[in-house]
Protein backbone atom coordinates (compact mmCIF):
# COMPACT_ATOMS: atom_id res chain seq x y z
CA UNK A 1 0.00 0.00 0.00
CA UNK A 2 1.31 3.40 -0.92
CA UNK A 3 1.90 5.94 1.79
CA UNK A 4 -0.16 9.05 1.18
CA UNK A 5 1.07 11.14 4.06
CA UNK A 6 3.85 10.71 6.60
CA UNK A 7 4.05 13.17 9.48
CA UNK A 8 7.15 13.15 11.66
CA UNK A 9 7.27 14.87 15.04
CA UNK A 10 5.29 17.85 13.86
CA UNK A 11 5.10 20.59 16.49
CA UNK A 12 3.38 23.96 16.53
CA UNK A 13 3.54 26.56 19.26
CA UNK A 14 1.36 29.63 19.70
CA UNK A 15 3.32 31.63 22.24
CA UNK A 16 3.52 29.47 25.34
CA UNK A 17 0.80 27.12 24.20
CA UNK A 18 1.89 24.01 22.34
CA UNK A 19 -0.99 23.42 19.95
CA UNK A 20 0.48 20.30 18.35
CA UNK A 21 3.16 18.35 20.15
CA UNK A 22 5.53 15.91 18.42
CA UNK A 23 2.79 14.44 16.26
CA UNK A 24 3.66 11.50 14.04
CA UNK A 25 1.16 9.83 11.75
CA UNK A 26 1.19 7.68 8.67
CA UNK A 27 -1.79 7.54 6.37
CA UNK A 28 -1.94 4.87 3.71
CA UNK A 29 -3.78 4.88 0.43
CA UNK A 30 -7.48 4.04 0.71
CA UNK A 31 -7.81 4.77 4.41
CA UNK A 32 -10.54 7.00 5.74
CA UNK A 33 -8.70 8.53 8.60
CA UNK A 34 -10.49 10.46 11.33
CA UNK A 35 -8.63 12.86 13.57
CA UNK A 36 -10.67 13.13 16.74
CA UNK A 37 -10.32 15.40 19.68
CA UNK A 38 -12.12 17.95 21.80
CA UNK A 39 -12.26 21.56 20.63
CA UNK A 40 -8.82 23.11 20.75
CA UNK A 41 -6.94 19.81 20.64
CA UNK A 42 -4.94 20.77 17.56
CA UNK A 43 -6.92 19.13 14.74
CA UNK A 44 -7.31 22.18 12.52
CA UNK A 45 -3.75 23.32 13.26
CA UNK A 46 -2.48 19.93 12.10
CA UNK A 47 -4.46 20.15 8.86
CA UNK A 48 -3.20 23.73 8.43
CA UNK A 49 0.40 22.56 8.70
CA UNK A 50 0.10 19.73 6.21
CA UNK A 51 -1.52 22.19 3.79
CA UNK A 52 1.29 24.72 4.24
CA UNK A 53 -0.83 27.57 5.64
CA UNK A 54 0.40 27.19 9.21
CA UNK A 55 4.16 27.23 9.73
CA UNK A 56 5.37 24.35 11.95
CA UNK A 57 7.82 25.07 14.80
CA UNK A 58 9.60 21.80 14.10
CA UNK A 59 9.10 18.43 12.48
CA UNK A 60 8.13 17.69 8.92
CA UNK A 61 5.68 15.91 6.66
CA UNK A 62 5.83 14.28 3.25
CA UNK A 63 3.05 13.82 0.75
CA UNK A 64 2.96 10.89 -1.70
CA UNK A 65 6.46 9.75 -0.80
CA UNK A 66 8.25 13.05 -1.31
CA UNK A 67 6.30 14.86 -3.99
CA UNK A 68 7.02 18.61 -3.65
CA UNK A 69 4.35 20.07 -1.40
CA UNK A 70 2.65 22.44 -3.83
CA UNK A 71 2.50 19.71 -6.49
CA UNK A 72 1.00 17.36 -3.89
CA UNK A 73 -1.61 19.96 -2.92
CA UNK A 74 -2.82 20.08 -6.52
CA UNK A 75 -3.83 16.43 -6.03
CA UNK A 76 -5.70 17.08 -2.79
CA UNK A 77 -9.24 18.37 -2.51
CA UNK A 78 -9.82 20.31 0.68
CA UNK A 79 -13.04 21.27 2.36
CA UNK A 80 -12.23 23.51 5.29
CA UNK A 81 -14.35 25.41 7.77
CA UNK A 82 -14.00 28.79 6.05
CA UNK A 83 -13.78 28.38 2.29
CA UNK A 84 -12.04 31.19 0.41
CA UNK A 85 -13.92 32.47 -2.60
CA UNK A 86 -14.18 35.87 -4.26
CA UNK A 87 -17.60 37.29 -3.30
CA UNK A 88 -17.75 39.44 -6.43
CA UNK A 89 -17.25 36.47 -8.76
CA UNK A 90 -19.83 33.86 -9.77
CA UNK A 91 -19.51 30.18 -8.92
CA UNK A 92 -18.16 29.43 -12.40
CA UNK A 93 -15.63 32.28 -12.26
CA UNK A 94 -14.45 31.15 -8.83
CA UNK A 95 -14.07 27.57 -9.99
CA UNK A 96 -12.07 28.75 -13.02
CA UNK A 97 -9.50 30.05 -10.55
CA UNK A 98 -9.46 26.70 -8.74
CA UNK A 99 -9.12 24.85 -12.03
CA UNK A 100 -6.28 27.14 -13.08
CA UNK A 101 -4.33 26.50 -9.89
CA UNK A 102 -5.04 22.76 -9.92
CA UNK A 103 -4.14 22.66 -13.63
CA UNK A 104 -7.13 20.46 -14.30
CA UNK A 105 -8.95 22.22 -17.11
CA UNK A 106 -12.34 23.89 -16.92
CA UNK A 107 -14.43 21.23 -18.62
CA UNK A 108 -15.50 19.57 -15.38
CA UNK A 109 -16.87 22.80 -13.81
CA UNK A 110 -20.48 22.25 -14.90
CA UNK A 111 -20.38 18.63 -13.87
CA UNK A 112 -19.02 19.49 -10.41
CA UNK A 113 -21.69 22.17 -9.94
CA UNK A 114 -24.41 19.69 -10.92
CA UNK A 115 -23.00 17.19 -8.45
CA UNK A 116 -23.56 19.62 -5.56
CA UNK A 117 -26.86 21.01 -6.87
CA UNK A 118 -25.57 24.47 -7.66
CA UNK A 119 -25.88 24.35 -11.43
CA UNK A 120 -28.99 26.58 -11.48
CA UNK A 121 -27.14 29.26 -9.56
CA UNK A 122 -23.82 28.94 -11.38
CA UNK A 123 -23.87 32.47 -12.76
CA UNK A 124 -24.84 34.14 -9.49
CA UNK A 125 -22.21 35.90 -7.43
CA UNK A 126 -20.78 34.01 -4.47
CA UNK A 127 -21.88 36.76 -2.07
CA UNK A 128 -25.54 35.99 -2.80
CA UNK A 129 -25.16 32.38 -1.58
CA UNK A 130 -26.49 30.96 1.67
CA UNK A 131 -24.11 29.25 4.10
CA UNK A 132 -25.12 25.82 2.84
CA UNK A 133 -24.56 26.85 -0.78
CA UNK A 134 -21.15 28.26 0.07
CA UNK A 135 -20.23 24.97 1.70
CA UNK A 136 -21.50 23.11 -1.34
CA UNK A 137 -19.41 25.26 -3.66
CA UNK A 138 -16.36 24.37 -1.61
CA UNK A 139 -17.24 20.71 -2.08
CA UNK A 140 -17.52 21.31 -5.83
CA UNK A 141 -14.09 23.02 -5.76
CA UNK A 142 -12.61 20.08 -3.85
CA UNK A 143 -13.99 17.53 -6.31
CA UNK A 144 -13.19 19.59 -9.42
CA UNK A 145 -9.83 18.00 -10.14
CA UNK A 146 -11.07 14.51 -9.21
CA UNK A 147 -8.32 14.26 -6.57
CA UNK A 148 -7.12 10.97 -5.08
CA UNK A 149 -7.05 12.52 -1.59
CA UNK A 150 -9.69 14.54 0.22
CA UNK A 151 -9.16 16.58 3.38
CA UNK A 152 -12.19 17.57 5.41
CA UNK A 153 -12.21 19.80 8.45
CA UNK A 154 -15.44 19.57 10.45
CA UNK A 155 -17.26 18.89 7.18
CA UNK A 156 -20.75 19.15 8.58
CA UNK A 157 -20.31 22.23 10.73
CA UNK A 158 -23.03 24.78 10.18
CA UNK A 159 -25.02 22.59 7.81
CA UNK A 160 -28.69 21.73 8.20
CA UNK A 161 -29.68 18.04 8.60
CA UNK A 162 -30.18 17.70 4.86
CA UNK A 163 -26.74 19.15 4.19
CA UNK A 164 -25.17 16.85 6.77
CA UNK A 165 -26.77 13.83 5.11
CA UNK A 166 -25.53 15.04 1.71
CA UNK A 167 -21.97 15.44 2.92
CA UNK A 168 -22.01 11.98 4.53
CA UNK A 169 -23.40 10.48 1.36
CA UNK A 170 -20.63 12.19 -0.56
CA UNK A 171 -17.90 10.93 1.77
CA UNK A 172 -19.20 7.39 1.41
CA UNK A 173 -19.38 7.76 -2.38
CA UNK A 174 -15.86 9.10 -2.60
CA UNK A 175 -14.56 6.41 -0.26
CA UNK A 176 -16.07 3.70 -2.48
CA UNK A 177 -13.96 5.01 -5.35
CA UNK A 178 -10.92 3.99 -3.33
CA UNK A 179 -9.88 7.50 -2.46
CA UNK A 180 -8.11 8.45 0.71
CA UNK A 181 -9.92 10.74 3.09
CA UNK A 182 -8.45 12.59 6.03
CA UNK A 183 -11.03 14.25 8.23
CA UNK A 184 -10.97 16.16 11.47
CA UNK A 185 -14.08 16.13 13.55
CA UNK A 186 -15.36 16.34 17.07
CA UNK A 187 -18.55 14.58 16.05
CA UNK A 188 -17.83 10.99 17.04
CA UNK A 189 -20.96 9.63 15.51
CA UNK A 190 -19.74 10.98 12.19
CA UNK A 191 -16.32 9.36 12.44
CA UNK A 192 -17.85 6.09 13.61
CA UNK A 193 -20.11 6.05 10.57
CA UNK A 194 -17.54 6.74 7.88
CA UNK A 195 -13.97 6.22 9.09
CA UNK A 196 -11.80 3.13 8.93
CA UNK A 197 -8.94 4.46 11.06
CA UNK A 198 -8.81 7.09 13.74
CA UNK A 199 -6.54 8.80 16.19
CA UNK A 200 -7.36 10.90 19.21
CA UNK A 201 -5.62 14.17 19.93
CA UNK A 202 -5.66 15.87 23.27
CA UNK A 203 -3.83 19.12 23.91
CA UNK A 204 -1.85 18.51 20.75
CA UNK A 205 -0.66 15.05 21.75
CA UNK A 206 -1.73 11.86 20.00
CA UNK A 207 -3.05 9.69 22.82
CA UNK A 208 -4.59 6.89 20.80
CA UNK A 209 -4.53 5.43 17.33
CA UNK A 210 -6.36 2.45 15.92
CA UNK A 211 -8.97 0.88 13.70
CA UNK A 212 -12.56 1.97 14.20
CA UNK A 213 -13.66 -1.65 13.67
CA UNK A 214 -11.49 -2.99 16.54
CA UNK A 215 -12.77 -0.39 18.92
CA UNK A 216 -16.38 -1.15 18.22
CA UNK A 217 -15.94 -4.92 18.60
CA UNK A 218 -15.11 -4.79 22.29
CA UNK A 219 -18.62 -5.57 23.45
CA UNK A 220 -18.38 -7.10 26.91
CA UNK A 221 -20.99 -5.58 29.19
CA UNK A 222 -24.50 -6.91 29.78
CA UNK A 223 -27.27 -5.16 31.69
CA UNK A 224 -29.58 -7.52 33.55
CA UNK A 225 -32.73 -7.17 35.63
CA UNK A 226 -35.30 -9.67 36.93
CA UNK A 227 -38.23 -9.84 39.38
CA UNK A 228 -35.96 -11.51 41.87
CA UNK A 229 -34.06 -10.69 45.03
CA UNK A 230 -31.27 -8.39 44.02
CA UNK A 231 -28.71 -9.88 46.40
CA UNK A 232 -29.42 -13.47 45.36
CA UNK A 233 -29.26 -12.53 41.72
CA UNK A 234 -25.97 -10.84 42.40
CA UNK A 235 -24.58 -14.06 43.90
CA UNK A 236 -25.87 -16.18 41.04
CA UNK A 237 -24.23 -13.90 38.51
CA UNK A 238 -21.07 -13.71 40.55
CA UNK A 239 -20.80 -17.51 40.43
CA UNK A 240 -21.06 -17.57 36.65
CA UNK A 241 -17.72 -18.66 35.23
CA UNK A 242 -17.80 -15.99 32.55
CA UNK A 243 -18.24 -13.08 34.94
CA UNK A 244 -15.33 -10.78 35.35
CA UNK A 245 -17.17 -8.27 37.51
CA UNK A 246 -20.72 -7.60 38.66
CA UNK A 247 -21.99 -4.25 39.80
CA UNK A 248 -25.33 -2.66 40.58
CA UNK A 249 -26.68 -0.40 37.94
CA UNK A 250 -29.86 1.41 38.98
CA UNK A 251 -32.57 -1.20 39.42
CA UNK A 252 -30.55 -3.85 37.60
CA UNK A 253 -27.10 -5.32 37.52
CA UNK A 254 -24.23 -4.81 35.13
CA UNK A 255 -22.06 -7.79 34.29
CA UNK A 256 -18.68 -7.43 32.69
CA UNK A 257 -17.94 -10.60 30.73
CA UNK A 258 -14.64 -12.33 30.30
CA UNK A 259 -13.48 -12.59 26.71
CA UNK A 260 -15.15 -15.41 24.84
CA UNK A 261 -18.46 -15.27 26.72
CA UNK A 262 -21.67 -13.71 25.53
CA UNK A 263 -25.19 -12.86 26.65
CA UNK A 264 -26.65 -16.18 25.51
CA UNK A 265 -24.52 -18.11 28.01
CA UNK A 266 -25.42 -15.80 30.86
CA UNK A 267 -29.12 -16.26 30.11
CA UNK A 268 -28.66 -20.02 30.14
CA UNK A 269 -26.81 -19.81 33.47
CA UNK A 270 -29.57 -17.76 35.09
CA UNK A 271 -32.30 -20.03 33.79
CA UNK A 272 -30.62 -23.18 35.20
CA UNK A 273 -30.43 -21.36 38.54
CA UNK A 274 -34.18 -20.70 38.46
CA UNK A 275 -34.14 -17.06 37.47
CA UNK A 276 -36.17 -15.79 34.56
CA UNK A 277 -34.68 -12.57 33.34
CA UNK A 278 -36.92 -9.61 32.66
CA UNK A 279 -34.33 -7.66 30.77
CA UNK A 280 -31.06 -8.60 29.20
CA UNK A 281 -29.35 -6.01 27.08
CA UNK A 282 -25.94 -6.09 25.52
CA UNK A 283 -24.21 -2.77 25.68
CA UNK A 284 -22.80 -1.93 22.29
CA UNK A 285 -19.59 -0.05 22.42
CA UNK A 286 -19.67 3.30 20.69
CA UNK A 287 -16.77 5.40 19.67
CA UNK A 288 -18.11 8.00 22.02
CA UNK A 289 -17.70 5.74 25.04
CA UNK A 290 -14.31 4.62 23.87
CA UNK A 291 -13.31 8.20 23.24
CA UNK A 292 -14.36 9.33 26.70
CA UNK A 293 -12.55 6.35 28.19
CA UNK A 294 -9.37 7.22 26.30
CA UNK A 295 -9.57 10.83 27.38
CA UNK A 296 -10.13 9.77 30.99
CA UNK A 297 -7.14 7.42 30.93
CA UNK A 298 -4.93 10.32 29.93
CA UNK A 299 -6.29 12.84 32.38
Amino acid at each position, binding site marked *: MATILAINNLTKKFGRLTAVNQLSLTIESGQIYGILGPNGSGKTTTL*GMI*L*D*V*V*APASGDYHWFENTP*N*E*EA*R*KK*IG*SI*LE*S*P*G*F*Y*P*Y*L*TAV*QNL*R*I*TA*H*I*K*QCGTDRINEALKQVNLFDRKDDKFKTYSLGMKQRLSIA*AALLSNPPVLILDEPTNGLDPEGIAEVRELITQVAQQGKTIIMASHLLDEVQKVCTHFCVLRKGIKIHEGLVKDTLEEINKVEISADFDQEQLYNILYDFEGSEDVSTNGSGLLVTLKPGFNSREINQHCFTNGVTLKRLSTQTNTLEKEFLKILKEHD
Partner: protein
Amino acid sequence: MIDAIKLEWLKVRNYRVFWILMGMYLLALTVIAAGGVFFLEWIKSLGTDFNGIDPTIIPIYDFPDIWQNMTYLGSFAKILLAFVVIISVNNDVTYNTLRQNIIDGISKRRYLLGKLMFIIALATISTLYLFFTGMITGSIYSHVWEARFIFDKLEFLAAYFFDIVVYCSLAFLLSLVIKKAGFVIVLLFLYTLMFEPIVGAILTNAPIFRDTIWSELVAFFPIQALNNLITVPFGRYIFMEIQDHIPLKTIAIAAGWLLIYLTIIITILTKRDMK
Protein backbone atom coordinates in the same frame (compact mmCIF):
# COMPACT_ATOMS: atom_id res chain seq x y z
CA MET B 1 5.32 33.20 -15.47
CA ILE B 2 2.32 33.12 -17.80
CA ASP B 3 0.41 30.95 -15.31
CA ALA B 4 1.23 33.31 -12.47
CA ILE B 5 -0.11 36.36 -14.30
CA LYS B 6 -3.14 34.45 -15.59
CA LEU B 7 -4.20 33.71 -12.02
CA GLU B 8 -4.20 37.43 -11.23
CA TRP B 9 -6.05 38.15 -14.45
CA LEU B 10 -8.81 35.68 -13.52
CA LYS B 11 -9.18 37.49 -10.21
CA VAL B 12 -9.65 40.99 -11.65
CA ARG B 13 -11.16 40.33 -15.05
CA ASN B 14 -14.75 40.41 -13.77
CA TYR B 15 -14.09 42.77 -10.88
CA ARG B 16 -15.81 46.09 -11.47
CA VAL B 17 -13.85 48.01 -8.82
CA PHE B 18 -10.63 47.16 -10.67
CA TRP B 19 -11.88 48.55 -13.97
CA ILE B 20 -13.24 51.72 -12.34
CA LEU B 21 -9.93 52.37 -10.59
CA MET B 22 -7.98 51.70 -13.77
CA GLY B 23 -10.23 54.08 -15.69
CA MET B 24 -9.79 56.75 -13.05
CA TYR B 25 -6.05 56.23 -13.09
CA LEU B 26 -5.68 56.54 -16.84
CA LEU B 27 -7.92 59.59 -16.86
CA ALA B 28 -5.88 61.23 -14.10
CA LEU B 29 -2.68 60.32 -15.93
CA THR B 30 -3.96 61.95 -19.10
CA VAL B 31 -5.00 65.13 -17.34
CA ILE B 32 -1.83 65.43 -15.27
CA ALA B 33 0.64 64.52 -17.97
CA ALA B 34 -0.97 65.96 -21.08
CA GLY B 35 -3.02 68.82 -19.66
CA GLY B 36 -0.03 71.15 -19.29
CA VAL B 37 -1.13 73.52 -22.00
CA PHE B 38 -4.42 74.12 -20.22
CA PHE B 39 -2.53 74.66 -16.99
CA LEU B 40 -0.29 77.24 -18.64
CA GLU B 41 -3.33 78.97 -20.16
CA TRP B 42 -4.80 79.10 -16.70
CA ILE B 43 -1.62 80.63 -15.24
CA LYS B 44 -1.67 83.20 -18.00
CA SER B 45 -5.31 84.05 -17.28
CA LEU B 46 -4.31 84.74 -13.68
CA GLY B 47 -1.98 87.40 -14.98
CA THR B 48 1.20 85.66 -13.87
CA ASP B 49 4.20 86.08 -16.14
CA PHE B 50 7.77 84.85 -16.04
CA ASN B 51 9.85 88.02 -16.50
CA GLY B 52 7.63 89.10 -19.32
CA ILE B 53 7.50 85.68 -20.98
CA ASP B 54 4.07 84.46 -22.01
CA PRO B 55 3.66 81.13 -20.12
CA THR B 56 1.86 79.49 -23.03
CA ILE B 57 4.94 79.65 -25.23
CA ILE B 58 7.00 77.56 -22.76
CA PRO B 59 7.86 74.48 -24.86
CA ILE B 60 7.02 71.81 -22.28
CA TYR B 61 5.89 69.41 -25.00
CA ASP B 62 8.93 69.67 -27.23
CA PHE B 63 10.79 66.45 -27.94
CA PRO B 64 12.81 65.17 -26.17
CA ASP B 65 12.08 67.28 -23.06
CA ILE B 66 8.48 66.07 -23.16
CA TRP B 67 9.59 62.66 -21.83
CA GLN B 68 11.06 64.00 -18.62
CA ASN B 69 8.21 66.51 -18.17
CA MET B 70 5.48 63.93 -18.69
CA THR B 71 7.06 61.16 -16.64
CA TYR B 72 7.73 63.62 -13.82
CA LEU B 73 4.10 64.75 -13.76
CA GLY B 74 2.71 61.29 -14.50
CA SER B 75 4.46 59.73 -11.54
CA PHE B 76 2.16 61.71 -9.22
CA ALA B 77 -0.73 59.55 -10.43
CA LYS B 78 1.02 56.34 -9.38
CA ILE B 79 -0.69 56.50 -5.99
CA LEU B 80 -3.96 55.59 -7.74
CA LEU B 81 -2.25 52.59 -9.28
CA ALA B 82 -1.01 51.64 -5.82
CA PHE B 83 -4.67 51.57 -4.69
CA VAL B 84 -5.35 48.90 -7.30
CA VAL B 85 -2.53 46.80 -5.83
CA ILE B 86 -3.72 47.42 -2.26
CA ILE B 87 -7.25 46.31 -3.08
CA SER B 88 -6.04 43.27 -4.97
CA VAL B 89 -3.81 42.08 -2.10
CA ASN B 90 -6.33 43.05 0.55
CA ASN B 91 -9.05 40.99 -1.16
CA ASP B 92 -6.84 37.93 -1.00
CA VAL B 93 -6.27 38.52 2.71
CA THR B 94 -9.83 39.36 3.80
CA TYR B 95 -11.63 36.83 1.63
CA ASN B 96 -9.23 34.09 2.72
CA THR B 97 -8.36 33.46 -0.91
CA LEU B 98 -4.62 33.80 -0.33
CA ARG B 99 -4.94 30.83 2.00
CA GLN B 100 -7.24 29.06 -0.46
CA ASN B 101 -4.81 29.64 -3.38
CA ILE B 102 -2.01 28.07 -1.34
CA ILE B 103 -4.16 25.13 -0.21
CA ASP B 104 -5.24 24.56 -3.81
CA GLY B 105 -1.63 24.18 -4.85
CA ILE B 106 0.55 27.22 -5.43
CA SER B 107 3.65 27.94 -3.40
CA LYS B 108 4.09 31.19 -1.51
CA ARG B 109 6.88 32.17 -3.90
CA ARG B 110 4.50 31.62 -6.75
CA TYR B 111 1.94 33.88 -5.09
CA LEU B 112 4.57 36.59 -4.70
CA LEU B 113 5.59 36.11 -8.32
CA GLY B 114 1.96 36.43 -9.44
CA LYS B 115 1.45 39.72 -7.62
CA LEU B 116 4.80 41.01 -8.87
CA MET B 117 3.80 40.14 -12.43
CA PHE B 118 0.49 41.91 -11.83
CA ILE B 119 2.40 45.02 -10.72
CA ILE B 120 4.73 44.76 -13.71
CA ALA B 121 1.71 44.46 -16.00
CA LEU B 122 0.16 47.59 -14.46
CA ALA B 123 3.46 49.46 -14.84
CA THR B 124 3.76 48.31 -18.45
CA ILE B 125 0.25 49.46 -19.29
CA SER B 126 0.93 52.81 -17.64
CA THR B 127 4.27 53.29 -19.38
CA LEU B 128 2.91 52.39 -22.82
CA TYR B 129 -0.08 54.61 -22.25
CA LEU B 130 2.18 57.48 -21.29
CA PHE B 131 4.35 56.83 -24.34
CA PHE B 132 1.38 57.03 -26.72
CA THR B 133 -0.06 60.04 -24.93
CA GLY B 134 3.36 61.66 -25.27
CA MET B 135 3.51 60.87 -28.97
CA ILE B 136 0.07 62.36 -29.54
CA THR B 137 0.65 65.42 -27.36
CA GLY B 138 4.07 65.91 -28.93
CA SER B 139 2.65 65.64 -32.42
CA ILE B 140 0.29 68.47 -31.56
CA TYR B 141 2.59 70.82 -29.65
CA SER B 142 6.20 69.91 -30.36
CA HIS B 143 8.21 72.34 -32.44
CA VAL B 144 10.51 69.58 -33.58
CA TRP B 145 9.46 66.31 -35.16
CA GLU B 146 12.51 64.31 -35.97
CA ALA B 147 13.26 60.76 -34.88
CA ARG B 148 16.53 61.70 -33.20
CA PHE B 149 14.61 64.07 -30.88
CA ILE B 150 11.51 61.96 -30.49
CA PHE B 151 13.39 58.86 -29.41
CA ASP B 152 15.95 60.64 -27.30
CA LYS B 153 15.70 60.54 -23.51
CA LEU B 154 13.39 57.53 -23.55
CA GLU B 155 15.25 56.34 -20.43
CA PHE B 156 12.81 58.51 -18.50
CA LEU B 157 10.06 56.12 -19.51
CA ALA B 158 12.15 53.24 -18.17
CA ALA B 159 12.68 55.15 -14.92
CA TYR B 160 8.94 55.84 -14.75
CA PHE B 161 8.24 52.13 -15.15
CA PHE B 162 10.74 51.26 -12.42
CA ASP B 163 9.31 53.94 -10.12
CA ILE B 164 5.83 52.38 -10.38
CA VAL B 165 7.09 48.84 -9.80
CA VAL B 166 8.94 49.80 -6.62
CA TYR B 167 6.12 51.98 -5.30
CA CYS B 168 3.46 49.33 -5.92
CA SER B 169 5.66 46.72 -4.22
CA LEU B 170 5.62 48.97 -1.16
CA ALA B 171 1.82 49.06 -1.42
CA PHE B 172 1.82 45.22 -1.66
CA LEU B 173 3.93 44.97 1.49
CA LEU B 174 1.80 47.43 3.44
CA SER B 175 -1.43 45.65 2.56
CA LEU B 176 0.01 42.37 3.82
CA VAL B 177 1.12 43.94 7.11
CA ILE B 178 -1.99 46.06 7.70
CA LYS B 179 -5.07 44.12 6.85
CA LYS B 180 -7.51 47.04 6.54
CA ALA B 181 -7.46 48.37 2.97
CA GLY B 182 -8.87 51.79 3.89
CA PHE B 183 -6.21 52.31 6.49
CA VAL B 184 -3.40 51.31 4.11
CA ILE B 185 -4.71 53.73 1.48
CA VAL B 186 -4.84 56.65 3.93
CA LEU B 187 -1.46 55.77 5.39
CA LEU B 188 0.27 55.46 2.03
CA PHE B 189 -1.33 58.67 0.81
CA LEU B 190 -0.29 60.67 3.88
CA TYR B 191 3.18 59.15 4.02
CA THR B 192 3.88 59.80 0.36
CA LEU B 193 2.55 63.32 0.21
CA MET B 194 3.08 64.60 3.76
CA PHE B 195 5.02 62.65 6.36
CA GLU B 196 8.15 61.88 4.38
CA PRO B 197 8.31 65.22 2.50
CA ILE B 198 7.94 67.12 5.79
CA VAL B 199 10.63 65.09 7.57
CA GLY B 200 12.78 65.40 4.46
CA ALA B 201 12.33 69.16 4.34
CA ILE B 202 13.21 69.50 8.02
CA LEU B 203 16.35 67.41 7.69
CA THR B 204 17.46 69.26 4.58
CA ASN B 205 16.70 72.79 5.69
CA ALA B 206 16.65 73.08 9.49
CA PRO B 207 19.89 74.67 10.68
CA ILE B 208 20.74 71.89 13.14
CA PHE B 209 20.52 69.22 10.43
CA ARG B 210 21.66 71.14 7.38
CA ASP B 211 25.01 69.95 6.03
CA THR B 212 25.12 67.08 8.53
CA ILE B 213 24.88 63.37 7.88
CA TRP B 214 21.15 63.65 8.61
CA SER B 215 20.44 65.66 5.49
CA GLU B 216 22.36 63.07 3.48
CA LEU B 217 19.94 60.42 4.72
CA VAL B 218 16.97 62.00 2.95
CA ALA B 219 18.05 60.57 -0.39
CA PHE B 220 17.71 57.10 1.11
CA PHE B 221 14.09 57.54 2.22
CA PRO B 222 11.76 55.16 0.37
CA ILE B 223 9.67 57.84 -1.37
CA GLN B 224 12.51 60.31 -1.90
CA ALA B 225 14.59 57.55 -3.48
CA LEU B 226 11.86 57.22 -6.11
CA ASN B 227 11.33 60.96 -6.50
CA ASN B 228 15.06 61.33 -7.20
CA LEU B 229 14.78 59.06 -10.26
CA ILE B 230 12.95 61.79 -12.19
CA THR B 231 13.39 65.23 -10.59
CA VAL B 232 11.52 68.49 -11.28
CA PRO B 233 12.40 69.37 -14.87
CA PHE B 234 10.78 72.81 -15.13
CA GLY B 235 13.78 74.77 -13.83
CA ARG B 236 15.23 74.58 -17.31
CA TYR B 237 12.64 77.04 -18.54
CA ILE B 238 13.99 79.70 -16.19
CA PHE B 239 17.56 78.80 -17.07
CA MET B 240 18.31 76.79 -13.94
CA GLU B 241 20.42 73.67 -14.01
CA ILE B 242 18.36 70.50 -13.69
CA GLN B 243 19.08 66.80 -13.38
CA ASP B 244 18.37 65.77 -16.96
CA HIS B 245 19.53 62.19 -16.60
CA ILE B 246 18.88 59.32 -14.21
CA PRO B 247 21.81 58.95 -11.80
CA LEU B 248 22.99 55.39 -11.18
CA LYS B 249 23.04 56.04 -7.46
CA THR B 250 19.28 56.70 -7.36
CA ILE B 251 18.60 53.53 -9.35
CA ALA B 252 20.71 51.56 -6.89
CA ILE B 253 18.87 52.99 -3.87
CA ALA B 254 15.45 52.31 -5.40
CA ALA B 255 16.52 48.79 -6.36
CA GLY B 256 17.71 48.31 -2.79
CA TRP B 257 14.25 49.21 -1.50
CA LEU B 258 12.58 46.86 -3.98
CA LEU B 259 14.79 44.04 -2.73
CA ILE B 260 13.93 44.89 0.88
CA TYR B 261 10.18 44.94 0.17
CA LEU B 262 10.24 41.61 -1.63
CA THR B 263 12.34 40.02 1.11
CA ILE B 264 9.96 41.16 3.83
CA ILE B 265 6.95 40.01 1.79
CA ILE B 266 8.31 36.50 1.30
CA THR B 267 9.28 36.34 4.98
CA ILE B 268 5.77 37.34 6.05
CA LEU B 269 4.18 34.85 3.66
CA THR B 270 6.41 32.05 4.91
CA LYS B 271 6.14 32.76 8.62
CA ARG B 272 2.56 33.92 8.98
CA ASP B 273 -0.14 31.47 9.96
CA MET B 274 -3.18 31.88 7.74
CA LYS B 275 -6.28 30.98 9.64
